[in-house]
C-alpha cells in the first residue's frame, strides 16, 4: 500500500515537471516559463533530479525489503 502511494507521488512529480512543456503552443514566446529560461538549465536539473529520485526510490525499496527479511528472522 505504501509502495503504491510513493510511486503515485513520484508519477505526480514527473507530471508536474512535464506540465510546462504542454503550455508552449498556446502562449506567446515571450511568456516562456522557468523551464525555458537560463539556457534551459532547469531541464538539466529536472533530468538529474529524476535520476537521483529513481535511484533513491530504488534504495528505499531495497532497504524495506531487507528490513522485512530481518523481521522474519526474529
Amino acid at each position: 500500500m505504501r509502495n503504491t502511494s510513493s510511486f503515485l507521488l513520484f508519477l505526480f512529480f514527473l507530471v508536474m515537471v512535464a506540465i510546462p512543456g504542454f503550455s508552449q503552443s498556446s502562449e506567446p514566446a515571450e511568456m516562456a516559463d522557468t523551464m525555458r529560461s537560463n539556457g534551459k538549465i532547469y531541464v538539466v536539473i529536472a533530468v538529474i533530479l529524476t535520476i537521483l529520485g529513481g535511484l533513491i526510490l530504488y534504495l528505499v525499496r531495497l532497504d524495506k525489503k531487507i528490513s522485512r527479511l530481518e523481521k522474519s528472522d526474529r
Partner: protein
Amino acid sequence: MNKSWWKILCVVLLVYTVVAGLLLPVPALRQLQETIRNLYFHVCMWFAMMILFTVSLVHSIKYLRSLDLRQDIKAQHNASTGVLLGLLGYATGAIWASYTWADPNNPAYASFGSIVREPKLIGAAMALLIYFAYFVLRSSITDIDKKARVSAVYNIFAYAMLFPSIWIIPRLLPSLHPGQEGNPALNFNDIDARMRLVFYPGVIGWTLLGVWITTIKIRLHLHTEKKWLNA
C-alpha cells in the same frame, strides 16, 4: 525500512547539491568555464571513497582485535562501495579532463599519451588496482577464518598504499591536475567561498549515500550468513 534521520539528510543534501550546484554562481575561469561545477560531483566521489576506505580499515583492525566475522563483513562492503565510488570518480575525471586539459594549441596535451602519463591518474589507478586485489584475495581463500584474517591484514596494507599513490607521489611530479601544492578543494586560498557553500554539503551527501548503500549490503550479507554468525 530502517528509518533514520541521516537517510533523509542524505536525500536533502543531494537534492540541494544538484540544484544549487547547477544554479548558484561560480567563478568564471577561462579554462574551466561551467565545468567547475564538476567539483561538486567528481571531487565528492573521491572524498566519499576515502571516508569509506577509512571505515573499512577501522573494521579490519576491529576484526583482528576481536576475530568477530561481522567486522570482516563490514570491512568488505565498505571497501567495495569505496571502490565503486573510486571508479565513478575516475570515470568522471576522465570525462572532465578530456574537455579541459586537451589544449589544441599545445601539441603535447593533444595526445592521449600525455594524459596517460599524468601522475595523478596513474596513482589513482594504482590505488584502485590494489583494492581490486583485495577482492581477488578474498575470493581466492575458501577457509572463512583464514580469508577474514589475511584480507584484514591486506586491507591495512591497501589503505597504507593509498597515501603514497594518491596523496604523495602525484604532488612530487608535474601534473595538469589542480591542487598540486595542497589538498585540492580543501585549500582555503583556491576554492571560492561561494563554492564551499555547495561543496561541503555535497561531500556529506555523497558520503551518506555511500554509507546507505554499504549498510544495505552489510545487512543483506549478515542475513544470509546468520547461521554461521550465530553458531
